[in-house]
């Protein structure tokens, strides 16, 4: 088993609230504490170098810019790391028997043998030092791999990390939901659904744990066999 690695981030860079210690206990980082600190985030699957590459790529797919915060503030890389460590990352629920036809037509969906973990691990080898390139160089590099399965996963997982419930490690401080005006899991819209025609109705977002007043165990924690 390899030694656990950590992702070191400046606390100010991430809107983040969820930081996981080795025993998976979450600790909350409050805004006033964040100023000059760094966060040491235990990684479940990625090496530190891999995490830096994925964080940089996600930040080009969903940049932080004039239209608002992006993958960096949402903590997308933490989300992806946890997904890959969980059952989805190792294809626990995919039909994974051969023979495999890697060239199967698009209509059959992904037919490759590689699990998401393997696709990331192998694919990231081709993006060595990606995080130290300029934004322009990074975009060029991503355009080159735009038709690969790795890129399809990166794009899909980045959107997921932006907008999933924060219990999954991304969408920190619900920045993704605030960006698009999605209120999260509201138990009732009964009094509002026939009102606000033609105008934006944007209730303050809430997380699933806030709504249920209890801890929720996300699927990636169901089984986190060692990477």
């Amino acid at each position, binding site marked *: 088993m390899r030694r656990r690695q950590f992702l070191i981030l400046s606390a100010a860079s991430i809107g983040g609230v969820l930081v996981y210690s080795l025993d998976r206990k979450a600790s909350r980082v409050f805004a006033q504490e964040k100023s000059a600190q760094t966060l040491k985030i235990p990684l479940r699957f990625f090496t530190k170098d891999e995490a830096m590459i994925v964080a940089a790529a996600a930040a080009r797919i969903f940049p932080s810019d004039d239209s608002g915060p992006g993958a960096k503030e949402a903590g997308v890389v933490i989300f992806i790391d946890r997904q890959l460590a969980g059952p989805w990352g190792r294809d626990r*629920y995919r*039909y994974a028997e051969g023979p495999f036809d890697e060239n199967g037509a698009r209509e059959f969906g992904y037919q490759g043998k590689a699990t998401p973990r393997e696709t990331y691990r192998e694919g990231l080898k081709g993006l060595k030092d990606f995080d130290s390139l300029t934004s322009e160089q990074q975009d060029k590099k991503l355009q080159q791999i735009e038709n690969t399965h790795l890129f399809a996963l990166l794009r899909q997982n980045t959107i997921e990390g*932006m907008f999933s419930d924060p*219990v*999954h490690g991304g969408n920190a401080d619900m920045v993704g*939901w605030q960006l698009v005006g999605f209120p999260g*899991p509201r138990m009732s819209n009964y009094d509002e659904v*026939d009102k606000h025609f033609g105008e934006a109705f944007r209730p303050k977002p809430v997380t699933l744990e806030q709504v249920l007043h209890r801890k*929720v165990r996300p699927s990636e924690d169901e089984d986190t066999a060692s990477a």
Partner: protein
Amino acid sequence: MKTLPSTDVVIIGGGWTGLLMAKELSARSAVSIVVLERGRSRIPEYSSGMDELDYFVRMHMMQDPSREAVTLRHHDKENSLPIRQYGAFLPGSGVGGTGEHWGAVYPRLMPDCFELQSKTVERYGAAKLPEDHTMQDWPVTYDEIEPFYARSEREVGVCGKAGNLNGKKIEGGNIFEGWRSSEYPMPPTITPYFSELFRGGAKSLGYHPYNNATAVTSEEYTNPDGVSRPACAFCGFCERTPCMINAKAQPTNVLLPVVRQRKSVTLRTNATVKRIVHDSAARTGKARGVTYIDESGEEIFQPADLVVLASYTLGNTHMLLLSGIGTPYNPATGKGALGKNLTHQVSFGVQAFLPKPLNKFMGAGGTGVRISDFDADVFDHTHLPFIRGGMIGAMSVGTQPLSTFGTTPSSMKLPRWGSAWKKASIEYFDRTGVIAFSGEQIPHKGNYFDLDPRYKNPMGDPLLRMTMNWQDNERKMAEFMNAKMVEIGHAMGAKEVNPFPGYGDYDVVRYQSTHIQGGTMMAKSPDLGVVNSYQQHWEIPNLFVIGASTFPNSGSSNPTPTILALTYRTADAILDRYLKKPAPLA
């Protein structure tokens, strides 16, 4: 193998049909009933279902493809490949089956769907029938099952407004629908903004919009069994999730509370049926019971006097093929009916980019407005290159960001990532609505099920194989409807409407609907189908096969209302006739 004490009835599957059959048989007879459900018991976890990632994207409610998958090829000359992750259709697993995560849309079939072949010939002549079609009339008519439709609507609690009460047309309802003996049990759900815009657009073009019938509650509702459910709260987490407050009808909140009280019914979960054990003989064969694998992995034989196969369409056909019951369909000779007439409701949408925010996170399953002006044979096809049609509508079922973020007007010609895409995606996130079409697929000679020669499940059994592609009729129908839908989008005030790109080959990635039909179709004689109109197997009278697998063709409507109506009819026939004299009912 362990052999258990015999039971009067064994039911394979604990979803809508299996639990309804258990409820009906236990209400009016003393037979002992064992229900075998492959999946797990599922209710306590529902409060955490408002999580788009685990439920909508990672598909927490669905069948696990690593345990049970199907394969696909488009035609006989192609190699099949496994559907490694479900996408185009989403079968469920666990108590309640697909009925837990369904969308609750509840329209009846149009009356002429039951007489597809003869009504088409009557109006247009035989030359109008599509090439290589395998249409044949059902052995039951709309008029015969109307009372069972009405019963199912009261049981599950359906909202809507009648458009045809005993032949009298009523404005505001669907005036093209088949006659109804009674009004819906509840008035329609509230109409959210996007669906209201559709009503306005459709009206301005002279169409006849109506509120869609749905099995979510518009007010507190108590059904004839005394089961009460609260009014829907429009939380918007509905399709692909179970309901957190039991406003959406599900087998676990409509049927299970009743079945649980019945001492004659035993429900076993984590029980994967392997085979129906039987003796063969034309018309006098006999099912002896079923073998299944229990939670510990042990193989069990459950003897039974009556076997009811009540899984999803795919499972029903698969079980008969694996058990060697009936003659598999051969497309080259046309002989055999097992696996024949596989259809999948035609489903696609156009994206309307609207000027004002839609607040689309508020919604409820099956809620919305539709038109049936282009459904079935409502409109004249004399000068059109296709037959039949479907419903066009604007549903407001609740929209979450993972499933919808990133849609932008095609005229902007944006890449699919980066700053410009992000900016436009944010701008259009709550201004994009999908106008959707649900239509009929005509059964075709080349679309069928059989066993896959290469791919197996973990028990070592061959997977079910679908040979399936869209045919000329669907492609031309889609082209015609696409134009109508774009026109309605503009009439709703859309700045731009992205049309449906048209049908390529059958695609397992894009979600269409979980409305796959056929494989064990009913017919008026044993040479034409697998079961009779009571869904009783033609060769084995103590075997009943219930569900959409018995449909000879797809309607434009979602199949569940018809599935439940036919289940009621079968239950009545078993109770009133079969239990008194176990013999062929037709």
